[in-house]
Structures are given as C-alpha cells and as structure tokens.
C-alpha cells in the first residue's frame, strides 16, 4: 500500500506543476471578474427592437436561448441528447465522456478501450459491440469485432460534434445488424459553424497534449465545407498492481512503468450542398496497455493500434411531390495491430476489415396522416481478416436488407408507428426485426409512449474465427443472437424549457453470445442462455431564461445473466447531475457534473464499492477577442475508484481510474 502511495505521488509530480498553473490562471480570472464585474457590463445601449426594420433585424446578433434539444433520431424510446453547447460547457474530450453523462449509461475503462454499459449490458471486454455508432447516418463500427470506438480511438473530435443522441433499446428495424442494445447517433457540425479557421491547443495531466486545426466555410452557392485535423499525445501514468507484485523478478515489483502512453491522429472532411453530402474521415490511435491482459508478460511493451477510415456520400432527390429518395453509399477500412510478449516471445496480432455498402431509402407522403418509409440496402463485408502466428482467416460476407415503416396519425393526439426489416446474411441466414410503437398525448404536453422492438446481432468474425491455436478456440457454428424489449415512457413537457420523464423497460436476450470463463481449460464463444434486464429511469431537465440549465437523472437497473445471477459490472443505481451557468452575462460559463455509480460484481464474483465523481469546467466566451479558454478538472475531489476489469485481465479483477486531473484548452479563431 505504501509503495502504491509513493507511486501515485510520483506520477502526480507533474500535477503539482499544473496545479500551480491553475492557481495562476484562477487568479487572473478573479482579477478580470473584479475589474469588469462592477462597471463596464452595465453598458446596456440597446437598440429598440420594436422600431427596427427588417434589414436592421437581419444584422442584429442574437443571444441564443437555452432550450431542451429536440431529438433527430426517429425513435419512440427515451432518447438522451448532448449538444455542442454541453460539450463545451462540460469540457468533454471523448465520446465516452459524453455518453457517461447520459441517463442510465456508464463507461468502463480498462486502460485499453472505453466500454459502454447500460440497460442490461455491461460486461467489459465485449468491445462495445451490440451498440451501433452512426456518424451522420453512416455506420462506424468495425466489421471484425463490431466495436464502436468511444475513446481517443474514435473517429471524430468532440469539437466537431453538433450533437450526440443515444437511443436506448433494440434498433435493428432501422439499422439491422448490431443495433442491439442501443444506437449512438453523432451529427457533425457544418463549416458555417466555424466560418473561418480555428486552431486549438490543449495540455493536460499525465503529460497530455493535443492540437487541432479546423477550417469551415459556406460558399455563396450554398456549398458548405469543413476540414479538420488533430493530433494527441499522452505519456500516461505508472501503475502499481499488487496482483503482479508476487516476487517474480520479471514483474518489476508490480509496477507497470510507462506502459500507459497513447497518441492519435485524426482527419475529417465534409462537403455538402443542398441535397448532397460527401464525407471522409481517418483516425489512428496507438495505445500502450499496462494491464498485461490474456496472461501476457507484465511490464513489457504491449500495445494496440486501431486505424479507421471511411468515405461516405449521400444524395437526396424529390421523385415527385409525394415521393423522396435518399441514396447513401459508404466505404470503410479498419486495421488493427497489436503486439505483446508471452514468456518472452512476441505475439503479433493483426486484423483488417473492409466493406462498402449502398442504400436506397424512399419516403412517401401520398396519404394525409401517413408517413411511409421503405428501402433496400446492400452491404459487402468483402474482407474480415484475422492474422495471428497460429492461424489466419478471412471470411467475407454480404448482406441484403429490405425494410418498411409507417407512421400513422390516428387522431390529432394519437400516433402509431409500425416497422419491419429483414436482413439476409450470406453466412448467417435471415433475421427479422419488427417494431411497434404507440404515442399518445392525453393532455397537451403530456406524452405516453409504448413500444416493443426486436433486434439481432450476427456473431462477429472475431468470435467465430479467432484462435491462438491452443487456449482460445474458434467456433464457426455460432448463431445469430436476438433481443426483445418493451418500454413505457411517460413524459411531461413545459414548452422547451422543462421536462420530466420516466421510463420503464423490460428486455430479454435470446441465445446471447458469450465466452467461457478465462479460468476454464479453454476459451470459446458460445450461444448461451438468455439473460433479462428490467429497470426504471427518471430524468428532469430545466433551462432558465438566463441560460442556466440543469439535468438530473436516476436509473435503477436489475440485470440478470443466463443463470439468474446478478450480471457482472451492472450497477443497480446510476445517478447523473449536470449544471451549467453563464457568469457575467455570457463572458464565462461554468459546468459542473456529478456521476454516481453503485457497487458492481466482478468476474471473481465479489463486489467492488460504488463511487461518486465530480467534474468542473470553466470557459470564457468571447471575453478576449478571437480567443476562448477552457479549463476542466476531472475527478474534482480526487476520489479513489475502480472499474471492473474484463475477464481476460486476470489476475486483475478491478482497474484503478484516474486521480484528479486537469485539462486546459486554448481555442483561437482567425477572423
């Protein structure tokens, strides 16, 4: 324990420097507050709006009102939304941090990847499969592990995100395979949101630095361009793992020394016109892994490199007054490279996933009070290659999908939504995904939404074919898994300023794919007994007229595995609290958040205690011409807390998380 403290202190040595920096900046802020707080802001020379002409009005700037965001995703479930304003107010650097602030969700970090947990899913190490990640409507999961990338390996810088919507529950009716437990829908900003060049430099704890350059412009012919590039480098921390401090001289007394570094590079380009869009992205992340998973040699150079690339195009056309057609096509390329040492021998691991797809989506409005959507999609996963020293495999496959959906307005306060989709996979056969939803507004602004849906996920290439030749065995006979979910949502709104909602759900999986425990003689993915989850979520949100806003939620979840036992890493209680307020008009903004997670069960069967984490951010908003400053403290009260480790991290059952850490960002606009 003593050693642990010394190490933590060592690794925080850098933090004290940052703390001093923080004190300095804080004092400067204070000075500003006092200097400007008393007099200059009282300068209230308002023009009279009532007397203004239309031309004058067009030139007036407006102060945007804070309001509850409206969902874009077409789903009857209780959607959570985080907007660009929230990202700025709370200083979110990754998609994982964004999702972690949402009702009922929690991120588990094993110092390799961020895994998402929510209603009835939680097990770390499942590569955040079973969640579909969409970027401007394009599917961004890789096709070897079906993983969605939420950490610094993700495709998009958070500063380019206009909004993130999380749609809980099965979504295969709209997106087919792998929209199993939920959908993360990212909508990126437009060039006009930047309107020029922007450069950002940030520094943070654990010797982390990031630089970004973005250019955005809308041309007179309505063509909008966005270009962005960024890079991040972090030295990371040293860790002491008592589990590895077992007297083995090779284990460096349980200290993983400089095995936590990471770096990434990202490019993003988007060009769009009135009815077309072209988008391309690239991200590459290299991460050192300090935890020696799969029984690798401890304190040796173990790393994962993930590279994702995509290009996508969309074209929308009106075929007639009542029929619209959207054509979508995309190509993506995923590379993974890992290296580790086992008993002194290198084990290089590689996978390549490449695919392209195309879709024609029709939207018909022939009949009043009916909105009909139907379409066909083709997807060719022509390469799903896994290369290990023991064996290589490459199993491509194709998918053909058809779907139809009708939204009836039965009465002026009653809507019915019916949809069905069939996916045919050349290797796994057919899967049908229906959805039924009823939306009722008995009183103005009181909503009742009842829905049932079913989704599927095909076994991944990794689950079916990966093998090390002795311990990890392939299973080409894996079958499709399914999930059924029913949800009742009660919602009360007051304009776009306040809302409260309660959601009740029940969800069961059928033949879910899971591995045998890593403590057994061999490890293999199998279709296992169905599991069940049920729960209640409550959320309240309010936006004040002076642009303060608050959001608080509580989720209770009761999640059982196939044997009827409490599911691993599924906290029964999750609480979130977010509050942000402008200071001195709009010149500053603070954001404070609190996240509470109750105790969880580990793979060893014991429980690990719950925790509460607070984060705080202070932003300047046009205080200094062209320059905005943002300063974030994560884990404000320096809480010691752990996440549950994936099974393959034996002998570790939990992994310590970051102590208090700092992040300072300067954003300069060239105008």
């Amino acid at each position, binding site marked *: 324990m003593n050693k642990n403290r010394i190490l933590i202190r060592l690794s925080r040595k850098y933090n004290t420097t940052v703390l001093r920096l923080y004190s300095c900046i804080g004092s400067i802020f204070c000075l500003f*507050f006092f200097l400007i707080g008393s007099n200059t802001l009282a300068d*209230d020379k308002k023009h009279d709006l009532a007397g203004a002409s239309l031309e004058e*009005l067009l*030139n*007036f700037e*407006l102060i*945007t009102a804070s309001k509850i965001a409206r969902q874009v995703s077409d789903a009857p479930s209780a959607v959570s939304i985080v907007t660009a304003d929230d990202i700025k107010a709370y200083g979110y650097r990754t998609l994982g941090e964004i999702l972690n602030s949402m009702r009922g969700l929690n991120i588990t970090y094993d110092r390799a990847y961020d895994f998402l947990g929510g209603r009835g899913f939680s097990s770390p190490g499942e590569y955040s499969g079973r969640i579909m990640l969409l970027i401007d409507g394009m599917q961004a999961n890789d096709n070897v592990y079906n993983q969605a990338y939420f950490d610094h390996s993700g495709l998009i810088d958070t500063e380019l995100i206009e909004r993130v919507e999380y749609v809980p529950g099965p979504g295969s009716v709209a997106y087919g395979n792998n929209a199993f437990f939920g959908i993360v829908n990212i909508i990126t900003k437009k060039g006009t949101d930047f309107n020029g060049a922007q450069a950002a430099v940030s520094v943070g704890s654990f010797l982390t630095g990031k630089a970004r350059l973005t250019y955005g412009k809308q041309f007179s012919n309505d063509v909008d361009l966005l270009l962005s590039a960024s890079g991040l480098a972090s030295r990371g921390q040293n860790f002491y793992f008592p589990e590895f401090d077992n007297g083995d001289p090779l284990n460096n007394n349980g200290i993983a020394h400089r095995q936590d570094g990471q770096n990434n590079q990202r490019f993003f380009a988007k060009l769009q016109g009135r009815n077309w869009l072209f988008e391309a992205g690239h991200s590459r992340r290299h991460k050192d892994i300090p935890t020696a998973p799969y029984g690798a040699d401890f304190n040796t150079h173990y790393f994962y490199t993930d590279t994702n690339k995509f290009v996508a195009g969309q074209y929308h056309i009106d075929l007639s007054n009542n029929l619209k057609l959207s054509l979508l096509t995309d190509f993506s390329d995923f590379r993974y490279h890992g290296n580790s040492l086992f008993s002194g021998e290198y084990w290089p691991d590689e996978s390549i996933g490449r695919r392209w797809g195309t879709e024609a989506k029709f939207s018909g409005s022939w009949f009043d009070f009916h909105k009909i959507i139907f379409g066909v999609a083709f997807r060719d996963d022509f390469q799903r290659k896994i290369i290990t020293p023991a064996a290589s495999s490459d199993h491509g496959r194709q998918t053909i999908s058809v779907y139809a959906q009708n939204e009836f*307005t039965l009465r002026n306060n009653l809507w019915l939504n019916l949809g069905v989709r069939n996916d045919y996979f050349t290797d796994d056969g057919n899967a049908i995904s229906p959805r039924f939803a009823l939306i009722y*507004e008995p009183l103005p602004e009181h909503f009742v939404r009842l829905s049932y849906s079913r989704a599927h996920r095909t076994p991944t290439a990794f689950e079916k074919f990966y093998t090390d030749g002795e311990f990890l065995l392939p299973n080409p006979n894996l079958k499709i898994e399914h999930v059924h979910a029913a949800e009742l949502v009660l919602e009360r709104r007051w304009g*776009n300023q306040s809302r409260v909602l309660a959601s009740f759900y029940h969800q069961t999986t059928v033949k879910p794919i899971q591995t045998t425990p890593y403590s057994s003689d061999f490890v293999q993915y199998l279709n296992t007994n169905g599991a069940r989850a049920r729960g209640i979520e409550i959320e309240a949100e309010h936006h004040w007229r002076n642009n303060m806003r608050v959001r608080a939620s509580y989720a209770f979840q009761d999640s059982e595995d196939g044997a009827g036992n409490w599911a691993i890493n599924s906290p029964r209680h999750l609480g979130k609290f977010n509050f942000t307020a402008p200071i001195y008009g709009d010149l500053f903004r603070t954001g404070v958040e609190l996240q509470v997670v109750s105790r969880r069960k580990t793979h060893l069967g014991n429980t690990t205690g719950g925790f509460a984490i607070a984060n705080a951010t202070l932003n300047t908003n046009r205080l200094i011409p062209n320059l905005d400053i943002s300063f974030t403290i994560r884990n404000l009260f320096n809480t010691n807390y752990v996440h549950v480790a994936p099974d393959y991290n034996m002998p570790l059952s939990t992994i310590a998380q970051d102590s208090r850490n700092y992040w300072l960002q300067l954003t300069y606009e060239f105008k």
Partner: protein
Amino acid sequence: MNLSDGKFIYRLLLFLSLFLGWTTDSVGQQNSFPEYAMKAAFVYNFTLFTQWPEYSENTLTVCTMYSDRLREELEQFASKLTQDNKKIVIQKITRNQNAAQCQVVFLSEEDMTHAPTILALIQNSPVLTVTDIPGWAEKGVIIGMNIQNQRIVFEINLKSAQQAGLQLSSKLLNLARKIYK
C-alpha cells in the same frame, strides 16, 4: 486539508467572483438581443410585408402553440404596436382548436409532433405559417427562420404562400436567403 494563506485567499476570491457573477443579470452586448425577442420582431415584420385577402375583423390574430417564450415576447410587442390601425391579438391554440381562424400561425420546435396535423388543417386557408424548425420551410411552412452565425436568416416557400392565397411583398422575397418554388 491545510490551506496556505495564499491558496485560501485565492479560493475565496474565486468563490466570491463566481457568486457575484451568477447573481449578475444577463447583460446584452450592443446590437445583440435575446433569441425569442428577435423572433417576435421578425414575426411582426413578416406581417408588414404580407397581404391577406380581405378579412372583416379589425384584428390580426397571431397564434402560437406550446412556445410560451415566443408568445410572451409577442405579447410585449403587441402591446406597443398596431398594424394599419388593426389590433394585434396573440392567441394560444392547442391541437383541438381551429388554427384557420388565425392570420399567422407560429410553429415552434415544441410543436413539432403537431406541425403536420396543423399544416394539413389550414391547407389552402389564408394563414401565414412561420416556423423556427430547421428544414420545415421546404416541407411546406411559408416562412422558416434559421440561426446562422448568431443571426436570424429566413427562407420562403412561395408555393405554400400562393396556395394560401397570400401576397408576399417583393422586398420580403429579396431579403429571403432561399426561396422554394
């Protein structure tokens, strides 16, 4: 925790300044106005450039659904103004009321679920529909407002205006960012 004096004073200062900051009212910079006040001003200006076919009452009825903020701003506006000696009346409608009695119907983001029904109800009636829901001018609302670079811009669906029998002045059309025909 053992705070050194300097640290303590700095923390006290930070706390005080944050506290003072929060209690200070939101202050407008020159030539910038709250969003809904601006939107209300635009709605009023749109009515100046719109010609309705003859209607008997001496009042111009502007209807909103669930956007309380816009309605309050419009009410403030209406108390100060008249249009050609006509009185401006602001009215809240719910989904069950006949929106066709209004001269102007404002559909806000809050009204999104009801917008298709309302639009179907007042089809071909002389009602100027205005919205701030992105993309809805293209879907048939006569005037759509959008926020761009902290300013309001608007687009016009001329086809819908013609179907409603409304005449929009050429000045209004000239100032529109986009016109759907």
